[in-house]
């Protein structure tokens, strides 16, 4: 059947039947890894309904038709959930997911993606969440599309939810890889100096993450699971949630005395103790740890402006303690990569603290 015939046949169908029919065709094309352009056309025209039926000529450029209305969006999400729930190889699902949402993520597609993932979390649709986890890693956990999905999940399940849903609590069980990547991304949303003010995470979010990790101390390492991708595809680098969550724990004393941070910190240390490295360390980037030092220095600077001795500031002391503990354990279990000597030098620039001094001393000599 020629491409024209395919389109001709699909055009005879109404929405969402055409989306439903188009998906298997798209799957065949992307798996065969030829005529990718045709797949892009089919996705655009029959899944997201981005082109009018008579304006198929690419040279004329896409003419935005009226976007899908809420009901159609809902219908499309159902079609996608159904499609991704079908049995089949993970690699195929992942490549279709990446084709749908990987490039050209228009605001409409982004919105649909957020709703799709949110719906999948509510319905515990494991295969779809697994694909979403792969997608996050491939587009980058700290990149805008991932951040948007993460932000929308936090809104749906934490901010606008009086009680954390059971489905969200069970997420590590349903889709551990996705949950780990979600933590990496969500960690980046808070207490991040790139945002003008350091905002702490919502308490409920902190609690749920602590619960996730304490119940499953190797969850943070689930990011390192190999991805199911078609042969030849390149997996993007892994970023575990360790660095981001450690940043929360280290910077938290400046904002809050909540014991939850103590717990989170403890479980992060326990997570690191779980690591058995056979190859080079991969879990924690020394550079990410060094960034925390910068934030601590900024805080020290503020203290000094207020004429407060950092060694007398309980919050600062606690932060440094946690940082020192994390560095010590990370080096000890050999889970930190990057330039460790440089990190130790950076740590030396902080106002002295007995534990930090011990840690620097212990690891410099080694």
């Amino acid at each position, binding site marked *: 059947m020629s491409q024209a015939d395919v389109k001709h046949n699909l055009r005879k169908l109404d929405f969402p039947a055409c989306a439903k029919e188009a998906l298997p065709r798209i799957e065949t094309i992307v798996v065969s890894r030829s005529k990718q352009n045709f797949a892009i056309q089919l996705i655009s025209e029959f899944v997201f309904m981005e082109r009018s039926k008579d304006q198929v000529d690419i040279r004329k450029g896409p003419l935005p038709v009226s976007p899908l209305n809420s009901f159609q969006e809902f219908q499309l999400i159902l079609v996608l959930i159904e499609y991704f729930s079908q049995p089949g190889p993970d690699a195929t699902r992942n490549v279709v997911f990446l084709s749908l949402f990987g490039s050209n993520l228009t605001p409409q597609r982004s919105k649909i993606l957020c709703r799709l993932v949110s719906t999948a979390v509510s319905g515990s649709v494991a295969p779809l969440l697994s694909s979403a986890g792969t997608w996050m890693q491939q587009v980058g956990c700290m990149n805008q599309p991932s951040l948007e999905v993460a932000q929308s999940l936090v809104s749906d399940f934490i901010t606008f939810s009086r009680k954390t849903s059971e489905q969200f609590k069970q997420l590590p069980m349903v889709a551990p890889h996705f949950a780990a990547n979600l933590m990496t991304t969500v960690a980046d949303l808070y207490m991040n100096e790139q945002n003008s003010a350091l905002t702490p995470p919502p308490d409920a979010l902190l609690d749920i993450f602590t619960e996730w990790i304490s119940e499953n101390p190797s969850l943070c390492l689930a990011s390192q699971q190999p991805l199911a991708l078609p042969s030849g595809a390149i997996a993007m680098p892994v970023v575990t949630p360790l660095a981001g969550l450690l940043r929360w724990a280290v910077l938290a004393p400046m904002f809050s005395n909540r*014991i939850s941070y*103590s*717990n989170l*910190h*403890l479980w992060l*240390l*326990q997570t690191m*103790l779980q690591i058995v490295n056979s190859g080079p360390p991969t879990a924690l980037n020394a550079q990410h740890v060094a960034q925390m030092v910068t934030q601590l220095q900024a805080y020290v600077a503020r203290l000094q402006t207020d004429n407060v001795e950092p060694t007398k500031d309980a919050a600062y002391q606690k932060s440094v*303690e*946690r940082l*020192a*503990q994390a560095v*010590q*354990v990370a080096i*000890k*279990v050999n889970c930190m990569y990057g330039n460790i000597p440089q990190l130790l030098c950076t740590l030396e620039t902080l106002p002295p603290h*007995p*534990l930090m001094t*011990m*840690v620097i001393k*212990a690891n410099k000599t080694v």
Partner: protein
Amino acid sequence: MDTSDENYLVCQAQKLKDTDAPAAKAWLITAKTLYPKNFNLMFEAYKLEKEANNFEEAAKCFNNMALTFKSQNVELWNEINELTNALRAPENEITPLQEFYVKMFQHVSYDVQHKILLLTVNNTENSIHQCKLLLLILKRFPQAAITHSPRLLEMIADGMKQDPQKYQEMLVEEALPLIYHKTPELSPVLVCRLFTISLEYYIRQIIDDEVKCDTNEIWKKIFQVLMLCGKILRWETFLPFNKTWGQNVYWDKLIEIVSISAAGSTQVLFYATSLFIYSLHCYIKNCYGRADDTEINHVLVEGFTAEWNVESSDVQSMEPPQISLTTPTSKDISKAFVHAAQCWQLLNTDQFQRDFSKLLLTLPLAPWISRFLFDLAIYFGHKEEAKKLMSEMMVSSSLIHNLQLLSLNLLQGNMTIKGYGYIKDIIDELPTTTGHILEHLTLKVPRHMIFIPLTQKALVQYCTKAILNTLSRKLYEPNCPDQILGNLLVLLQLEYPRETIMAEQIFALITTRRAFSYHLFTTYIVTIDFVEEFMHIWHTHNEDFAFDLSPTQADSRVGTRGTEKGVREDFRIIIKQQIAKANEPLVPLIANFIKQEYMHLMGSMFAGAINY
């Protein structure tokens, strides 16, 4: 190591312990990575988990401490003591702290568990306490059975020297049930020892209170232990105990195992010994019956052969004789006896003899064995051995003893005067149970044995048979006196109408004599057919036959024709009298006959004999 640094770390953790436990833990985790060999840090971490009742985490700390510091450290040693005390504490009065120790112990690695226990066991003075401690561990941690049970079993085997009963009981009632499903690797010597100990324990139980205990249950347990030993030593599988199976089922299986085993193999030794004792027990149990039971004691005695004129002493050391059925239980008895005998023979072959006799010495089987060996000797017709064994045997019942002596006497050939003496003793001591007249007392075989039940009828029948066998030989001597013919007729009444041939011979002989004098006639001849036979002889001789049948009739025989009428009348009266007595019970009658006419019979049998 800088002690001030380590103290600082411990202090920081202690400061936070109550307000921020996770922070305190984080401190200790860090501290442990900084100073991994520092006991105080580890112990602090352990205490923190212990106080929070986190037995799993505490177990990890404890594990590390135990592996790193052994037991030189006082604080650690105290903890170990607390822990073992908790393990020993009775489950229903355990304190919360002890409960913590018990739970923690379960999360400590096997290696450390083993170390701690052995350490404690080794530090316990009394070996019975050591055993109890080990038992307790096995009960609490059944999964540890494979690791710890060999040591316990060895200690129990050692303890047998001090207090056999206590250790036996501990082994059988407590230790063995723990390893049925978790069989450890044990040395063959130990396994054999354990089986012997168990066997001894169970046999003593059977012997000590035969009446109260359910012996089937005990045999079930013995077979269980046997199967366990077989499993450990990877023997060919024997059969489990099933009270409905006869010994032959086990014997067949044993033979099958023997055929594929090396000569003198331990598996055959133990299987055969078990089957031997099982058969022996069934044999003894059935022989002795039970005092309060309707069951009757049985005694193995020589049976009689049909060729009464053949010297029975000629047939010895041939095939073992058959055992004829007498009572319903005699079937089980002979089965049990034959299988015990078969096992005994197998176990007394060169390959097993040494080990088997050693094994027997440890078992309290003497009373059973001496009875069995005597029976075995007479079974195989080994007279001399039987005599020797008889002299060594303890006499528990004079009736049984006399019966065995009689049987032995019969085995030796013709009954002697001494043998005849036992008959008197037996008749004097007849039991109260009436019983039944036995079948198959006499067979046309070279030799056979019977299990005679100790009842009036059976015993009188046996004694009668013995006398008849001796007395009947006189029948073929020329001019056999009327007295003997009469006595034979009296005795033949007991089994009448069996063995009518001899009676017919006697009557034929009487007929030819035209005169017959037997003054005991009126007292002892009551069988209607015999009485009628006399009447028949009388009639066929036209009443012209000189019968002298009554003590009171003594003179009338020397009569003339004038007194003839009186004689006729007397005979009719006597016959009439005897017919009236026809329903008189024969057993007491014959018993009485033997008793009253003891000397008279002796005279008949041994006149001129040198058979003493």
